């Protein structure tokens, strides 16, 4: 049987991900309601919004990470390459191989630096030159020169910023299509943050990136598109307020809530 997905960039350009009528519940708690969002291919889409509005939740629905949460329930659809990733024939393993993820807190495997990058490729049955793949991935995240002499050391022996870059290298080593990043710089100092941002811009040439951030300047600096989420104050349910090109969202937001948030009058 042919795989549900093909490798590489989706044909037809346009949108890498299309979420429609997406809703998430944690048990009885309606965490996010009715999200319709299109993520453009080879662009950086930033998700911003106040704490607790469901940014991470939405990001995790994009590669079925919420499957791991027992109480989580997802409704609606997320189309990737024309296939609903929540469809009955779709194996989440294949989804996550193409839609990678970088987490808020750097979480390298407690294994060697080499193994951190190589492991994903190995379990997917990568038959090419593993050392070359590791080197390329590490070069791409501008970490190679710092670690090339200590590839056998633990990934945990690196600094926080290095660890986060290692995690990004790990994510891109399996040649995904889309990289989801959940506040990748929140644990980093401004210099390391700048490194990662440059890296994101670099990666955008080949990957579609969705990044959650609390940092308004960061969203403005790196993203092409911005989606603003807010929370309905009575029910604490999150909703998508507005999405569009970053310039437009920051210069002339349509919704007053967006305006309040980005000008700092909210939260």
């Amino acid at each position, binding site marked *: 049987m042919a795989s549900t997905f093909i490798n590489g960039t989706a044909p037809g350009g346009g949108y890498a991900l299309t979420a429609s009528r997406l809703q998430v519940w944690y048990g009885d708690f309606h965490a996010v309601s009715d999200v319709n969002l299109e993520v453009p291919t080879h662009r950086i889409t930033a998700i911003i919004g106040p704490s607790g509005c469901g940014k991470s939740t939405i990001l995790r629905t994009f590669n079925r990470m919420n499957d791991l949460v*027992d109480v989580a329930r997802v409704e609606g659809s997320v189309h990737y390459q024309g296939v609903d990733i929540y469809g009955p024939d779709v194996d989440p*393993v294949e989804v996550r191989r193409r839609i990678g993820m970088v987490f808020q807190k750097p979480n390298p*495997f407690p*294994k060697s630096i080499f193994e951190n990058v190589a492991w*994903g490729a190995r379990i997917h049955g990568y038959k090419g030159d593993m050392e070359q793949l590791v080197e390329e991935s590490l070069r791409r995240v501008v970490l190679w020169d710092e670690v090339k002499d200590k590839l056998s050391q633990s990934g945990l022996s690196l600094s926080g910023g290095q660890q986060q870059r290692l995690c990004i290298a790990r994510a891109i080593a399996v040649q995904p299509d889309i990289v989801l990043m959940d506040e990748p710089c929140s644990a980093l100092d401004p210099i390391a943050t700048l490194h990662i941002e440059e890296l994101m811009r670099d990666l955008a040439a080949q990957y579609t990136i969705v990044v959650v951030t609390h940092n308004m300047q960061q969203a403005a600096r790196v993203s092409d598109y911005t989606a603003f989420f807010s929370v309905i104050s009575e029910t604490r349910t999150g909703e998508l307020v507005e999405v569009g090109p970053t310039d437009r969202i920051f210069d002339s937001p349509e919704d007053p809530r967006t305006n309040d948030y980005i000008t700092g009058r909210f939260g």
Partner: protein
Amino acid sequence: MGVFTDKAAVGASDWPQGAGETSRTRRRRVRGRVWRGLLRVSTVFGLLVLTTLLYNVVNSTWGYVVVRDQLSEQLIVLLERSHITHAERRVDALRMVDGNPHAVVVLSSQLVPAVPDGFRGVPIGDQHAALALIALVPETNRFLLGLDETLLRQLLRAGSRWADLFPHWPTESISLVFVVDDDGVLSRWAARQDLPNLDNLGTDALLAVLETHLSAGLLRRYDREEPMADRSRANLLALVEERVKEPEVLATFTLRDSLVRRGEIQAFAESEGAIAEFRSWLTLGFLVRPQSANAALSGIRTALLGSLWVIAITIIFSVPLGIGAAIYLEEFSSRNWFGRLVETNINNLAGVPSIIYGMLGLVIFVRALTQITSGSLFGAVSADEASGRTILSAGLTLGLLILPVIIITGQEAIRAVPDSLREAAYGVGCTRWQCVRWHVLPMAVPGILTGAILAVSRALGETAPLVVIGAATFISVDPTNLFAKFTVLPIQIYQWTARPQAEFRNIAAAAILVLLALLLITNATAVLLRNRAESQRI
């Protein structure tokens, strides 16, 4: 007045101020110190209890013991060398010494008529006496009649030839002297030190010794346990020591008494005509000797082997099963009411008294599964050998007992693996099993191992359930397969402490030390494995 003053803020009166604050702080510190003291006291108390326990055990394991052999090694050897085929140690011994040029028999006059023809009236120094060196002593010979053991020993030490004693006696060297009482019992004897001891006897000789001295009934019993001809030399030697030499322990002393009251002990031994020797009840011999009715000769070989066999079965059965269940429950099963029910049950099972597991084992393994646990299904042993009361049953019962503990500790260890690691693994697209195999397990192994080893240590020390399923009370044959009868260290210790004779308490103490050492080895292995697992994780 306090050291610092507060800024006059709103609600300042709500906070303790000045001297009030200082005394409050002091009180907080005092409370902390009291707690620290209590914690230290509990630690010291625990240490004290442990030290007392160890002191008691060590105190009984080493010390003086006063022993008297029924038959000396030299005599046994001599009798064996003289081809005695008779069990009785009566005056017939004379005939046995006939032809032994190194023996002299000292008889009282009343026995002279009972002496075989060849010996009657032969005076010392006669050519016959020169061959056999048998002296028939008339009552008038006060010197020889008054021989007691001490004198005999002196005599043997003083001169090396008979002629050294009386110039007209033969020049043969003296090696052995028998003294035969009026009733014909060979009562005293003395030997030169260079006479061979039991160690010089081979298997055949030992067999002959046993046949000479043991009753036919006893021989049959031993033969049933294991055919005499098949037994090892060490085994035969142990039997000779136990049944022929028959050392009788007159008294044992603790290590403390041995150090403090040494003189008294020596005097006591002398008065009893016995010897006092400082003995370590814990010796290599103690480890390798089989069980015996005589404490001084008893070893823990069978119990030690039994423990090792049983614990091996327990580990093989419960560790993989327990770890497997823990992984399944933590990583694969869904958290619905059924899963919670299972978990609650496992938690409760861990608290069930061990004797209940014994009863369970009795019903399931010993009775219901007799065919399997006795090995008759596999044609290994005849069914009457041990019925279901075998090593296999014991190992499985202990396995059941510790299974819940292994599951629970395994679950704890797996739960301690941070979710961020799982997310990282799933993030690159691995399956659940790959995540468990390559990330969760390597992280959890040290914890899982610790739990499993603690559980196994507990099983090593379990007694009650094994008593219930029927551990053997006396076996002197090594367990060699799964379907053998068994006894284990704790049961052996229990039985020995229950004996009335003091010396059994000494070997019980020695056995306790062995058990403690075994536990220490188990735990050390765990620490090693743990460190290895941790270092491999980088």
